[in-house]
Every structure is written in structure tokens, then in C-alpha cells.
């Protein structure tokens, strides 16, 4: 597998604590094409990313995860990569897993692969109970709103083929956290060849404090309904 064919998109909002480390690990793993989308951070995220010598797109104001991922996809498409990966900045993914999600696209003609933190029995135990219940709720909601029923709809590690990224980019509406579910809905609506692959999750106090909570869950529901109207 040629890692130069792969572009890794890392959305980051106020991640000065982890972003440097995450980027170093990615580079150590051999990924040179990295796009950081700084989503209007008020801390030092932008400068830290710049020092790492990666491509940095800076949102002049905060737009949310969906806005940042859209920018990352659009920017990556300009380089004509074979695979575009989305990778969380908070250090919860293992860079070694990128290979696992990219392979089905390069070798088996898949359009989209999502790395699931909940497919492996051993991995499930690592996820705190509240997060597991919330995750199941959002999986079900994603299904209700017209997506596939998958084990981890909110995962941040995804791989898109060039064409899939283009199709999804053109239809993406989300600005915030609802983007993860919208991806799954768009995958189904466009009949993209899709599968989930088990990945590892690294839970630290840092990554635990972030991410989705119950209120965000309800906001996601509201936004997905609005997407159907507007």
C-alpha cells in the first residue's frame, strides 16, 4: 500500500494539548499527506499544526465538526488522492488502524469504510457504559433518519474513496456533530459500497471529557429532522 495515495484529514478545535502528538504519530506511521482543519480555535492549535509542516486550513470562525470535515474533504480532493481518511485530533485513534480502513478501498473497491470502536467484544468493554448507551441511541437514530444500521455511527475514523468523497462533499449539509450520522445517511442514499471494520480506541481522561453527550444527542436528532425539511 502506497501511503502517498492517502490524505489524512484531522479536524481540530482547541486541541493544543494533543494535536502535536497526534500529528507526530501519524507522520511516524508514514503518512506525509496530512490536512489539519483548524476550526477557529482560540488556543495555539494553528501554530502547533503549522510547525509540524502539514497542510493547515484555518476557519476564521468556529463552524463545528461538520463544517471542518467538509473543508477537509474539499481541500483533500484538490490533491486527487485515492483515499481520504478522517482522523480525530484528540488522540483516541491508533494510526495503525488507518491501514485497516484504507485497505478495502484500495483493494476491494469499497467506497466508504468506517472504523467501529464497538465491533470487537474486548473493545466494547473499554467504552464506558454511558457512552455505550448513548452510542446505541445515536446508531438507532441514524437508522431511523435513513442511514444504515451500524455499530458505531459516531466514529471519527473513516475512509472515503475519491469518488465517494466528491459525492458526499457535494451533498453535505451539517455544520456540527450531526455530520457523523449524515455521512451514514448519505452513504445509503447514494448506494455507496460500505462496510465497518473494528478498530482500537484509546480512552484517556482528555478524550473522555470531549465528544458527544446527551444534550448533543438531542441536538443531532433535531438537526437530522431539519435536514429532511430544508
Amino acid at each position: 500500500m502506497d501511503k502517498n495515495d492517502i490524505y489524512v484529514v484531522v479536524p481540530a478545535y482547541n486541541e493544543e494539548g494533543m494535536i502535536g502528538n497526534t500529528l507526530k504519530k501519524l507522520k511516524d506511521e508514514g503518512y506525509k499527506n496530512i490536512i489539519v482543519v483548524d476550526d477557529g480555535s482560540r488556543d495555539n492549535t494553528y501554530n502547533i499544526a503549522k510547525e509540524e509542516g502539514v497542510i493547515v486550513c484555518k476557519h476564521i470562525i468556529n463552524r463545528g465538526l461538520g463544517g471542518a470535515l467538509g473543508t477537509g474533504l474539499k481541500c483533500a480532493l484538490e490533491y486527487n488522492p485515492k483515499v481520504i481518511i478522517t482522523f480525530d485530533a484528540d488522540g483516541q485513534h491508533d494510526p495503525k488502524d488507518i491501514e485497516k480502513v484504507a485497505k478495502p478501498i484500495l483493494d476491494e473497491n469499497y467506497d466508504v469504510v468506517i472504523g467501529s470502536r464497538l465491533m470487537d467484544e474486548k473493545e466494547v468493554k473499554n467504552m464506558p457504559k454511558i457512552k455505550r448507551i448513548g452510542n446505541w441511541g445515536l446508531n438507532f437514530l441514524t437508522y431511523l433518519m435513513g442511514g444504515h444500521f451500524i455499530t458505531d455511527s459516531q466514529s471519527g475514523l473513516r475512509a472515503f474513496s475519491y469518488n465517494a468523497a466528491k459525492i458526499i462533499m457535494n451533498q453535505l449539509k451539517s455544520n456540527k456533530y450531526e455530520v457523523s450520522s449524515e455521512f451514514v445517511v448519505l452513504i445509503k442514499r447514494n448506494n455507496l459500497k460500505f462496510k465497518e471494520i473494528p478498530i482500537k480506541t484509546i480512552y484517556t481522561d482528555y478524550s473522555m471529557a470531549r465528544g458527544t453527550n446527551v444534550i448533543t444527542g438531542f441536538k443531532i436528532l433535531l438537526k437530522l429532522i431539519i435536514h429532511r425539511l430544508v
Partner: protein
Amino acid sequence: MQLIQILAIIFAVFAISRVILQVRANAMSRDSAIFWLFIWIAVILAVVFPNTLGYLAILTGVGRGVDVLIYLAIIVLFYLIYRIYVKMENIEREITTVVREIAIIEREKKEKKVKL
């Protein structure tokens, strides 16, 4: 005629004049102008002929004419809030598009760093 009726008519005429001024200044689309003209003319008619509301009440099965007005007002308000929500959603998306374009055009390229 009661004082409240006169005040209501004056206000409605004033509102209509604003709508016409805004259309002349191209600040309002024709569709929304027609919508607002319709609303205010209906208000004037209802104020001048209060009995029409009574007929409306009997027709719709609601107790009093004023109640019909209140129900209608709530429906109209809901519709307007919905329209504002849709507009806000679209504006949010447009802002993201603008921010995205700027971010991509002005991106920090790693090639640039190598040249330096």
C-alpha cells in the same frame, strides 16, 4: 366606531404603506409583499365589519369571532417562525461555505515551507 377600531385601522394603513415603500425600494420580494398586503387588508376588513368574524366563528365551529382571530394568529406565527428557522439554517450553511473557501484558498501549504 370604537376608538380601538380606529387605532387598528390607522396601524394597518401605516403597515400597508411601509410594505408599499419597501417594494418600491426593492427591499422586499413581491411574494412576501402580497402576503403582507393580504394580511393587513384582512385585518382592516375584520375591524370595519366585526360581524364577518362572527360568521367565521359559526362557520368554523369556534365560539367567538375573536377566538378565530387568535387561532389564526397562532397559526401565522408558527408559519413565520418556521420560515425564519429555514432562513437561518440556510444562512448558517452559507457562512460555512464562505469560511470554507477562505480556509482553502489561504491554506498553509507544506510546499511553501520547504521553499522557505
